């Protein structure tokens, strides 16, 4: 009898395991072969060379990295370094702008209910269902000295000539990236603010805290996890952005994705591209570590 029980348990355990393998296996396989394996290849190719017929020759050389960082005028005088630093700055500015804009809206969303809540949610989400590339094309005719924004401003009595901030350039890229990544920040902030027990806020008010104190000492600390997650989800994708600077920088500067893409499509320099991409993977990994420390998967739906 005992043996049969043990056998039954064993079968059940095996059955559970088989079921689990069947459930998670395909998805895990997908992630391993299409995310982890390619990343490993990317690292390998970054040390490889490309021969004259554009095939990858496996080797261990740091020449790609030298090419990234050592220019004709010395260390760090390369288009890659310039673009990388500029991309970091643009991403940081975009992240800051989305935080500043999304915080009040997210807070307001938590305080609303019923019809107003739905209306506001609808109003902030709909603009993101236009095709991304068409949206950036649309910014193209909004910006510029002849653009709609500047034309409208000049038509008013307050502005004499087109404003520099609405010309093509860094500001245009940051503004349209802020627009593009706003919902990521909004939704993560909203879900963490929504989790705050309003009783805590009322209690601190009863205990004599001013509104500013409540904001500073209660609301912000309690929503800091969502804030960090939101920042990561804006900063990292913004770093690798391609179409936006292509359309809105008008050749004044290039961001890192453009440098790498140009090298790969024009010179078939996959190895250079791979080495350069690794400098986008490092921020991705840091971001990933931060998200894993601060957020639970359940909160991200």
């Amino acid at each position, binding site marked *: 009898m005992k043996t049969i029980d043990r056998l039954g348990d064993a079968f059940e355990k095996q059955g559970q395991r088989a079921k689990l393998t069947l459930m*998670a296996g395909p998805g895990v396989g997908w992630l391993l072969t299409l995310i982890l394996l390619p990343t490993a290849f990317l690292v390998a190719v970054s040390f490889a060379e490309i021969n004259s017929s554009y095939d990858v020759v496996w080797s261990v050389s740091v020449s790609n990295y030298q090419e990234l960082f050592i220019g004709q005028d010395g260390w760090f005088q390369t288009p890659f370094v310039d673009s990388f630093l500029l991309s970091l700055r643009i991403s940081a500015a975009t992240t800051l702008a989305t935080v500043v804009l999304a915080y009040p809206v997210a807070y307001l969303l938590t305080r609303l209910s019923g019809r107003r809540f739905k209306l506001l949610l609808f109003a902030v989400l709909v603009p993101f269902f*236009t095709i991304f590339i068409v949206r950036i*094309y649309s910014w193209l005719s909004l910006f510029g000295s002849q653009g709609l924004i500047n034309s409208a401003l000049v038509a008013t009595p307050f502005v004499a000539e087109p404003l520099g901030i609405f010309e093509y350039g860094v500001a245009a890229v940051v503004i349209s990236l802020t627009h593009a990544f706003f919902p990521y920040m909004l939704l993560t902030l909203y879900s963490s603010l929504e989790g705050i027990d309003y009783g805590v806020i009322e209690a601190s008010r009863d205990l004599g805290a001013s509104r500013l104190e409540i904001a500073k000492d209660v609301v912000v600390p309690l929503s800091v996890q969502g804030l960090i997650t939101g920042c990561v989800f804006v900063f990292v994708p913004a770093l690798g952005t391609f179409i936006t600077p292509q359309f809105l920088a008008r050749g004044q500067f290039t961001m890192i994705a453009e440098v790498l893409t140009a090298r790969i499509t024009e010179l078939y320099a996959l190895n250079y591209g791979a080495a350069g991409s690794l400098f986008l*993977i490092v921020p991705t990994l840091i971001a990933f570590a931060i998200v894993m420390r601060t957020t639970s998967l359940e909160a991200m739906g």
Partner: protein
Amino acid sequence: MADSERHSRLSRLVGEPGLTETVSVDRIVSAVATYGMWGLTIGIVVFLWLPLTQIVVLSFMENSAVLFPFEGVTLDNYVALFTNDGLLLAARQSAFVATTAATVATLLGVPLGFAIARHDFRGRGVLRGLVIVPLLMPGIIMGISLLILFRVVDLSPGFIGTVLAHSVYGLPFIVLPVVARLAVFDRKLEEGARDLGATGWGVVRDVTLPIISPAIAAGFVFAWLRSFEDFIRVFFVGGTMDALTKEMYGMVVYSQGTEAMDPMATLIVVVVSAALAIAINLRDILEYV
């Protein structure tokens, strides 16, 4: 000015006359914060709708590149869209890729979501992290690394490569809502069904899946859209395959046929926002289930 006088002035500004004596800086801050928040939110909504409005308005304009000078209203741009065979073909191809990729992502993602939410196993912590990587990974890295992988295994860039790329890209959009929904799922419903004699699979099919299906549907729509509007991944792994975004990119770079872009985006935003409106309203009904 006496303190009380100043307070009553402030209180009138705040609009709470009954509180003349107790009005304080705090109330002012509060009023400013409330009105400021509404003002800011309205401003942000205007900012968010700026390109959308321009896309929709320009799609009906005679002069489709800029709003001024105003030359009249027309449906010519829609005619241009529906007579642009290259663009339509590319759009169909992209829709086909998006549908296939989102379907694959759903078939893989729903069971994966169940496994993560309901089972405890070794490596679960790592898996929970791995699932969000496609969302975090910049598109250019996914594009370049998959291009290298496909070269190594000798898969020529094209339809299959793009579907593979987009299906893994779409996976988090399915897994995350499923895990989130299962976390708040009332398991008494399943126990009830089991007590009434339903089998394990029967419970999942007849009870669990129907209840979490809005989460899956929302995930599918997001995965579909992200695939449909993706440029950088299909640019690297799409080879010579037609894709809507590649076609549009060429149109902008060579400024040719761009009048068809706004109508296309308008049609999509109408369809998706209608779906969103229904979904937001439907959630009310479904929350009672």
